């Protein structure tokens, strides 16, 4: 597979380590009253869709960027890749 790295262009997928569902960006508020239940979901529950999925890849043998890659898990078509840092900052900025 080839990954369209937003800074480096197409890179071989073997340079990356895979983590999984990009929802891991949304770490729950540790001070919320239901924090324990929210963390339980965050740590243990993942979606595993057949189809378009947003997931985290780490360019470990490269520039050490964490990427949010949008991939169709059925066809392996990669629909896009963003720097996870940009995605996380945008979410924090929007208060989401």
């Amino acid at each position, binding site marked *: *597979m*080839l990954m369209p790295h937003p800074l480096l262009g197409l890179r071989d997928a073997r340079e990356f*380590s895979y*983590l999984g569902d990009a929802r*891991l*960006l949304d*770490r*729950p508020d*540790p*001070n919320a009253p239901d*924090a*324990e239940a929210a*963390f*339980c979901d*965050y*740590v*243990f529950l993942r979606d595993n869709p057949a189809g378009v999925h947003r997931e*985290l890849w*780490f360019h*470990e043998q490269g520039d*050490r*960027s*964490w990427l949010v890659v949008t991939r169709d898990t059925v*066809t*392996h078509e*990669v629909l896009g890749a963003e*720097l*996870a*840092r940009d995605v*996380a*900052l945008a979410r*924090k900025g929007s208060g989401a």
Partner: protein
Amino acid sequence: MTRLSGGLIDRSQALSFTFDGKRYEGLSGDTLASALLANDVRLMGRSFKYHRPRGVLSAGSEEPNALVELRSGAWQEPNTRATVVELFDGLEARSQNRWPSLGFDALAVNDLLAPFLTAGFYYKTFMWPKGFWEKLYEPAIRKAAGLGSLSMQPDPDAYDRGYLHCDLLVIGGGGAGLAAALTAARSGARVILADEDFRLGGRLLRETDTLDEVHASEWISAMEAEFESLPSVRIMRRTTVFGVYDHGIYGAVEQVSDHLPQPGDQVRQTLWRITAKRAVLAAGAIERPIAFADNDRPGIMLAGAMRSYANRWAVCPSETVAVFTNNDDGHRTARDLAAKGIQIAAVIDVRPEAKARGDYRLIAEGMVTGSRGRLGLTAIEVQADGKSEWINCGALGVSGGWNPNVHLASHHRGRPIWSDDLQAFLPGEGGPSGLLPAGATTGCFSTAAALRSGAETARRALQEIGVAARLPELPRAEEEGYKIAPIFHVQGRRRAWVDFQNDVTVKDIKLAHTENMRPVEHLKRYTTLGMATDQGKTANVTGLAVMAELTGRTIPETGTTIFRPPYAPVALSVLGGGDTGPHFRPRRLTPTHYWAEARGAVFVEAGQWMRAQYFPLAGETHWRQSVDREAMAARSGLGLCDVTTLGKIDVQGPHAGEFLNRLYSNMMATLKVGRIRYGLMLREDGFAYDDGTCARLAEDHYVVTTTTANAGLVFRNMEFARQCLWPELDVQLISTTDAWAQIAVAGPKSRALLARIVDGFDLSNEAFPFMACAALTVSGGLRARLFRISFSGELAYEIAVAARYGHALMERLMELGADLGATPYGTEALGVLRIEKGHAAGAELNGQTTANMLGFGSMVSQKKDSIGAVMSRREGLASDRHRLVGLQPVDPAGKVVSGSHLFAEDAPHSFDTDQGWITSACYSPHQGSMIGLGFLDKGDERLGEVIVAANPLEGESARLRVVPAHFVDPEGVRLRE
């Protein structure tokens, strides 16, 4: 027999080879199969199950029958298809799956037992007694139904791996492939043309048709000359593209030196990973036989293969041949063979409207219904007009039609589609994107159509990537039609083979139907149809057609099984490439590796690292002697140990403290500059993850350490936290594990030694106390970092210098410390020292323990959030009452074994009464007995109690006393002195 006229062989170059020990001669340009046929050898193997005599069926990589063993000794290679083995001088080949000889095979008795050996027989027959399957039946069946054998020696050859990139990959070097490559080459695109054969041309080499009135080989030579003049074109002969992977990546194996007597300094094969923007699949078509009674005798082969042998290699298995066909192509074989002087006994065509294409006897609307000849064909039985006759012939060419080679186009779950006109599957939808089929693969069976298709497909592929290509002028070529009747097998009572390699007959398919194994995937697995090394290339469509007939459904309704890589067998060795033995994975050497090696150190693998395990001295005969000495030296005097392998991560930035606060369970932002704090990391699920030290070198600069094993993972998690969780923090990370050599200097005399090396630095306890750190220089200006930390429990330091000075620093320390008794110690003594001190390591931080269990519960700060803090408080984790304790045998000679489980004295040893387990154990020279660390239920409240450690694996148990985990200096006085 003598060679026929013509052929693409070099008659001036004779090559000597042996088959089953007998010497023969072939010619340069031969395959093993053509050379054997030239020497009248028709019998080349025995079938898999029934041990039936078999000859060659095909002239290509689809061959199911002629599997042979090549070479000898460690170079022995089983299951090689004689049809693709390029002959070389001195080649040794042997037949397989026969005993005592190919001509007389004792296990041919299986053929008489055939009624008991039908599809799935082993599931039905060998059911009882239950245990016999694994111990008796399966090994016996495997031995009887075998292929070739392995040498059982390590592979002596070298292999390589390579990476290629191109605009257009052309798979197949026949007419369509050459036309595609030509079109692309002239456009300036980067082209790779790969073909499995040692000679480009594909089917063009096997026909007599001319291109522009000259023999096709002349046109091919002109193409090759043009390609070789262009730097943008790479021709890869002997290269099989075996699979299509995601995003335009193709796997290919090049047989670099398989055709040479000795590989010399070359590798045997290379695994290529080709990244192509587009690919043209010009893989041609594969002929299929018609199944009829006893259709597997040596001498019965595919009609197209028979024509190939005559035209390309100038050989024919017999001087009298017959042809059995359901389509026009079979007549071409009769025509070409007749032109070479072969006697055509008859052409039997199933079609009533069939017309002869030469001066030979045509039997229209006829069927071949039987054959004779024990080790080779002597006669065939033909039925026509309600009459039956026997026709003498030494060979029979059979054509059941041509199957476009849809294999690669059907990877990625592409589904081929059925063509009624061609009675064959064509590449369908859903296959790999970027792969465009052309030529015979798309059903363009005439030469002219294939050439056009190749050129047009290449132009289309290039257009998709923005390259304009013009269609080249193509040579004039034959453009004959192809008509076929849908006949796949001849009815009859005797066995008619469908899958030759796995001995699957029409009867087996009928049985599968009767027993309701009707879906194709069930049919395949029940009868093993298409599951041999040839993957049913000549068998599958016929098998589907028979099942379709039985179920009354059409062939497309019956469907095909899934196509998967590899297209043709690939040796595991080439997939491994050069990654064998010490090259299996990278080896990391510490900066003092060669120093340690020179001192005779014994090394141990720690992940990728090679670490000194212990340093035996003359006269030490057991590792314990060395380890005890090294540990005692560190306790009583001075020990030196390379600890470079611990992960070292530099954390810098205005928010470094806050960042580490969120990573470690304890407070790090409050750490004073010049000080070090022990840190415990949790996983987000609340379990303990890793530990290490955080040293604050400046307000905005920390250096943290990780365990050796987790160095990479912790760094990955820290990057995750920095980029994904808290991108708003201004902090930067870099791993400096390899940049700094770090040496532990441990023992009461460590300060005295360091005082001799530092450049005017005050090492007094007041100026540089326990848990202090500093940047300084040593040995007259060498930049260094000094940390006063102790893994051993003694007064100790760790000193770091740039990695390239690690070796020299160790030498200097040993030299300056000689009078202080400086003793190098390895990982074993390091382990002893840390167990004696009660420090947790990998065995205690195994992902199943909590901060509470480690006795660090109070370290998890309640004042701040950190990774894992919320989950560490959840029910189940917080309530776990196992605590880390020390364990000492009541009998000083008693054993402590890690992995043992702990029980109250007199309690039964069961899951319900289990109170904990031992994580680490060693002999402690300090204590003079074995000691251990373990987790014991309410262990912190049970000091002094005697418990039992059970080791049921060895049927042993021992009485142990529960003691504090610190066996040495529990008050921590020594390390603070």
